[in-house]
């Protein structure tokens, strides 16, 4: 019996020595990163949500170590207030329109979104994807015509996606990477390249973090090869635009 206990203790001591000895981080990340972040790093804890909700929580003192936002505005605001380090862009994305697989409203192009009676779901204006949606509509000169069809402003991109995937809404604006997570449930309509907003994801280390060194390593690894490969495999764009 004593030998068994001893063996267990030795095993317990050896196990973490084999892995990298570092503390588990709490990463606050944009909802659109829900599927890909655990693939990049399954060791840390994640809180996914609308980037603006997460930023507000960090301002209220939430115990986050890393903040990965779907824009650069929010982490820059935190940086200006001294609440996080200078943000770095770690990936980019594009916007698409999704419609339910059955496509009850018969939407083929973005211009169909102006038709009367179309139930369009978007994210709220404070959510990154919500403001990107407004930019797309403005770029395509569709703001007024489409805005009358908005039936709900959701709190993050995945809420938009699930309302479309459920078939409750006729269409919604999400990132192209979100559309890929529910194959067979939604159809994707591309937003033309000329109307695309500049979707850059910024990451920073939270000033109040008690694991700053590990958090910095997390950020460094995020912009390195292996993590970038996984992001690209999930449909994200390389962090620097190729000329």
């Amino acid at each position, binding site marked *: 019996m004593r030998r068994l206990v001893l063996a267990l203790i030795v095993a317990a001591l050896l196990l973490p020595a084999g892995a990298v000895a570092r503390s588990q981080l709490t990463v606050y990340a944009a909802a659109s990163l829900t599927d890909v972040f655990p693939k990049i790093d399954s060791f840390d804890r994640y809180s996914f949500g*609308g980037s*603006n*909700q997460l*930023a*507000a929580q960090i301002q*209220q003192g939430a115990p986050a170590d890393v903040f990965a936002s779907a824009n650069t505005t929010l982490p820059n605001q935190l940086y200006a207030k001294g609440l996080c380090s200078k943000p770095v862009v770690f990936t980019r994305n594009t916007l698409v329109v999704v419609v339910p697989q059955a496509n*009850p409203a018969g939407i083929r192009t973005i211009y169909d979104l102006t038709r009367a009676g179309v*139930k369009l*779901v978007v994210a*709220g204006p*404070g*959510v990154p994807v919500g403001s990107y949606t407004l930019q797309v509509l403005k770029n395509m000169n569709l703001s007024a015509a489409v805005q009358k069809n*908005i*039936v*709900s*402003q*959701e*709190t993050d991109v995945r809420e938009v996606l699930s*309302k479309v995937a*459920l*078939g*409750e*809404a006729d269409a919604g604006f999400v990132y192209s990477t979100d559309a890929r997570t529910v194959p067979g449930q939604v159809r994707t309509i591309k937003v033309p390249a000329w109307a695309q907003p500049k979707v850059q994801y910024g990451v920073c280390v939270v000033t109040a973090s008690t694991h700053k060194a590990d958090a910095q390593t997390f950020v460094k690894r995020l912009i390195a090869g292996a993590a970038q490969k996984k992001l690209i495999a999930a449909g994200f764009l390389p962090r620097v635009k190729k000329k």
Partner: protein
Amino acid sequence: MARRLLVVAYVAAAGIALVFLLLPIAAIFARTSPAHLLDQLSNPVVRDAFVISIKTTVIAQVLILVFGTPLAFLLASRRFRGRALAVTLVELPLVLPPAVAGIGLLAAFGRLGLLGSSLNAVGVTLPFTQTAVIVAVAYVASPLYIRQAVAAFEATDPNLAAASRTLGAGPARTFFRVILPLARGGLIAGLALSFARGLGEFGATIMFAGSLQKVTQTLPLAIYAEFAVNFNATLAMSGVLVLISIVLLAGLHLGLSWQRSDSTRSPFFFGPSSSA
């Protein structure tokens, strides 16, 4: 000495519990001055959410009253097989997590839902409409009224109803002139409770009705949405909800004290434990 220590511990525990319950409420008002609160009330997001909340909750209460009262009376006055099961099922939405209620409403009344597809065929789509908010509020809040109404009806003295009948009053007259006045305190208490629950409804609403300013965005949904945008507005809205809740709580206690003085028995679920 040991006894004295026990008394101190006892008082301290009670004090901690009291402070714990009051602190968050006090903190809301500590962080927002009355002037600031009034100032935020002119914020269109706050004002619209207030109007939507009051409107949907009042309509839901009317529906709960009209449909819930007959059900409560039936459950209170008739003994039939499966009554206990019926009572349990009526109470179920009360303990259901709001997110589950939201999924249930979508599965039932959503576009592809059980009833929703038939509704859709005749041109009625509930999700994302104000009607959907009313449905969600009525679903989660009605059990509180029905439960309290059942207790109120059961507490009325059956001899008075019997006397009314032997004196020649019909069942409808007996119900409206004898039973309803006897039970009114409990019914008012039930309405106050379900109104408060309806006003606070969040999870089922955001899933079933979505959130859109001026259409479906109630105060709790606006608090959630504004949290990330304008913390002062969320404080003001929270302050408004606290004040309304205090009024409702007063209504609840007033209703309960009426019921106690009006009837002989009072087996209440939500009544205060001490007889004041």
